[in-house]
């Protein structure tokens, strides 16, 4: 299981999807994409089939959180798989739009 800490980058084993961990819970958790565990960027992953039940997809630039908000990731590459922790799908975080200042 790849170490989950703020800043680390994970790749999907079922699609092109990639995420960066924005904030991580203190206890180790496993993030899955399309039903299969994600692996650390730079590491080796075994390609797997996408679970059709977890194939809504992730969109680049969107942030995803667990229901208790203990884990937050940023999608840095879009993919077809959906993110989940312990079988529970992550939720897309609503971000507030701000006036442009620089």
């Amino acid at each position: 299981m790849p170490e989950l800490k703020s800043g680390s980058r994970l790749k999907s084993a079922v699609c092109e999807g990639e995420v960066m961990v924005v904030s991580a819970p203190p206890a180790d958790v496993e993030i899955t994409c399309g039903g299969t565990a994600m692996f650390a960027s730079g590491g080796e992953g075994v390609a797997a089939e996408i679970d059709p039940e977890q194939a809504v997809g992730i969109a680049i630039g969107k942030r995803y959180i667990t229901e208790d908000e203990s884990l937050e990731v940023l999608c840095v590459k879009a993919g077809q798989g959906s993110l989940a922790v312990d079988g529970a799908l992550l939720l897309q975080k609503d971000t507030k739009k701000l006036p442009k200042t620089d």
Partner: protein
Amino acid sequence: MNIMMLLEMAGGVFPDRPAFTDCSSGQSLTYAQLFEAARYRAASVRASGAERLVKLDVSNLGTPLSLFTSAWAGVPYVPLNYRLTDTEIEALLKRVTPAYLVTQAERAVRLGGLDGVLPVSSAAFLADNLHPHPVAEEWSMDPDEIAVLLFTSGTTGEPKAAVLRHKHLVAYILSSVEFACAEEQEAALVCVPPYHIAGIAAILSSVYSARHVIQLPNFTPQAWLEAARKYAVTTAFLVPTMLARIVDHLEGESTAGLPHLKNLSYGGGKMPLSVIHKAMQLLPDTDFSNAYGLTETSSTIAVLGPAEHRTAQASDDADVRRRLVSVGQPLPGVEIEIRNDQGEPLGPGERGEIYVRGEQVSGEYEGRGSATDADGWFATRDAGSIDEQGYLFLEGRADDVIVRGGENLSPGEIEDVLLAHPAVLDAAVVGVPDEQWGEGVAAALVARKGMQIDGVELQAYVKEQLRSSRVPQMIAVWDELPYNETGKLLRRVVKARLIDQSVD
């Protein structure tokens, strides 16, 4: 976590969109070209053995390229002020060796003899054929690596190098910018110096928005207006003195304003009320935002937005109108508190020092560690207050407070009154030594064209509105006040000149 990731994301979605255009040369780089160029420069920097990438030049395509090259190569980016003398630059360069120095051709020759400095001309840095090898590895995702070292202007003694790590800059961008939110035809006009935090924030915000940046290296109101019209600029950032000069210029023009300009934000110094009022009248369709931030906080921490500008301008309520001089409310993820001399939090309307906390706050200087306290709060040394509705008002630097007979006086409060007088164009209030009171209030003023300033009348004018302790005992009328190139009033210079004048 690495700022390179921001460019990678934008390049992945809009590879062929123009990323940066240098107004003076007319040259451009697309997002994909900028990403690829950084990959090749990163290999050159790695091969050189340099531990810092120093950029010493006006804004050009080499500016964003240096920033992203540094991030990919894993060395801090150090932009230096090209207005400094060679002697001053040599002193700073000695603190950042071994350094890969990207600079103007003449300076590359002059500074080439320094130990541990590898000079490369800006033209050679941009030339693809001189960087034949791409870097093999990806960039580091360690959030604690240093992204930028920024020398602060240094109020006293040696300049300090503020440390901004990848985690600070990325946190700032993620909390304030929506990814790829810019439309194809949008363009941002950037004229702040590249060695200023606002210049770095402008690059990162625009890249994450996938917005085209137009670089204007040397600001004049004419050049700015010309570029804004030529490139149909939709977004721009200005320091108050720049906006004041543009407003002056627009007033004298017969042609109709800036129809494409949707957003105009300003910050970096105190905006005179008369300037922002006039700007809003001249550009009624433009959204204005006031941003307050510091180098040590990765740029903006509070914003007064467009709706608040319009409400304040249209209101008859004095408290709501006053909001036009506020810097608004904290960004998401940023907490702001006002504290007294003992470090205790103060209530609404009370003046004290501004403290800030959040993931984008570094508060760290090289060789001195972090200046944040155990709970992560950073003391800004700026004085201010927060009103009942949570709007933050700046009252100058905490060090600028005048202590007259044990009473703390805020120069900003007195300046606001002076600036409201019809004969006064600009005003600076400082403390000068006084035998009786310890410090006395002195004012340097600039008269409006064709107007005379009557010192006695002005003293009576201030006394009508404020307590008598705040009436300037000395009033000097100058042709202009001293500002640095980013529009910061040089209070120390004002003070020294006023003390000189009082002795004469």
